[in-house]
């Protein structure tokens, strides 16, 4: 069972349908009390500040920290990945979940923002989430904020847009992707499948 956290972000439909297409059972959680074991997915739509406020109001922030500590497999998608960090330039002063060290930044300079479209990822070897994914495979991104790549051990894949940033995170049972696997055709579906089959 995969529990998808509903934090008022909006579009859960695509994620749920992708899980369904891969044969995974999924349920939507609007309250931590509804959790009945299994894996957790934090989808990604909306803004950092609003999302964190909603997570705190509903008690999901404490719940997620506890589950991460307990070793429950967690997958964050897009904003759901950024929320795992300590803070974001999108909402200065707003604390993130703090499960990973680092700050989420905004793309600057001559770049077009949002970084929108299909870009290539560079996986590091032997990452469970990236089984079957090749160097240079394209996935679909739609984001204005990013986690800079710094060579940290949790970086499972990176992508280049003006600078190198973190595309996939893997640390013990904590996983995250900056792109949208549910919109990334066969490559994205493979990554979701890897998470389902953990």
């Amino acid at each position, binding site marked *: 069972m995969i529990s998808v956290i509903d934090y008022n972000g*909006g579009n859960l439909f695509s994620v749920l*349908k992708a899980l369904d297409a891969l044969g995974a059972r999924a349920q939507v959680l609007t309250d931590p009390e509804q959790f009945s074991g299994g894996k957790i997915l934090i989808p990604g739509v909306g803004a950092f500040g609003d999302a964190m406020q909603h997570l705190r109001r509903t008690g999901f922030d404490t719940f997620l920290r506890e589950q991460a500590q307990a070793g429950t497999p967690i997958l964050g998608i897009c904003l759901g990945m950024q929320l795992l960090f300590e803070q974001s330039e999108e909402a200065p002063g707003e604390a993130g979940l703090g499960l990973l060290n680092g700050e989420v930044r905004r793309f600057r300079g001559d770049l077009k*923002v949002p970084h*929108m*479209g*299909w870009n290539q990822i560079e996986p590091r070897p032997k990452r469970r989430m990236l089984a079957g994914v090749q160097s240079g495979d394209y996935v*679909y991104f739609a984001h204005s904020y990013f986690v800079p790549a710094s060579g940290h051990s949790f970086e499972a894949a990176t992508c280049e*847009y003006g600078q190198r940033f973190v595309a996939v995170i893997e640390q013990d049972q904590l996983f995250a992707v900056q792109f949208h696997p549910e*919109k*990334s055709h066969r490559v994205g579906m493979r990554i979701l499948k890897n998470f389902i089959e953990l």
Partner: protein
Amino acid sequence: MLAKRIIPCLDVDAGRVVKGTHFVNLVDAGDPVEQAQYYDEEGADELVFLDITATSDRRAILIEMVKKVATAIHVPFTVGGGVRSVEDMREILRAGADKISINSAAVAHPELISEGARAFGSQCVVVAIDAKWDHDHWRVFTHGGRRATDLDAVEWAVEAERRGAGELLVTSMDRDGTQDGFDLPLLKAITQKVNIPVIASGGAGKISHFIDAVREAGVDAVLAASLFHFRQLRIRDLKEAMKHHGIPVRTVS
């Protein structure tokens, strides 16, 4: 490298694709799901569905269609046509669309752009601009090209960005349907002034037109309808050619 996107545009009316793909082995050429799956397999990077006769009583039919398409494909898609409010946008996004394209309503109520961007993020808000050359500038038209406005297309593009649009879909009315090539001066005038992705539309007739739009006008994505529907050009062939010319594209094995 960020790939240049190829986007087929499908016109829908009451949940059915009109002017759909011909000469393809489809059971039902009017079925949006079959069309979407066909283009997904062909390597389309994204799809645009344009509800050409959107009326409020048909909204429910459109929502059903969006849900079915979202179930069938795993690439992003945009829905446009008759979107007038943040609530309209929310309903379509919740049904599984990734982006909403707004045109006439954005001109009438520019705050709709910022409201949509605030509610759902800029990446969900596409502002569609229909432009036509008029003496010394490109004039913006609304209501499917039937109504002239006082807006200058380049200035309107800049304002749409300022208000929070995540992307611009720029259609040249002069070139639309001609297959004479994209309106490069119009597109270039806009890409030089904005810092958000621009989708070129109107005039695609052959491979070199797509290459010119990317190289000379600096667009991020190219859209076409009948050229793909009638299979004058297949997306996989187009992508091979673009790749051969050194343009980054996503190829599907």
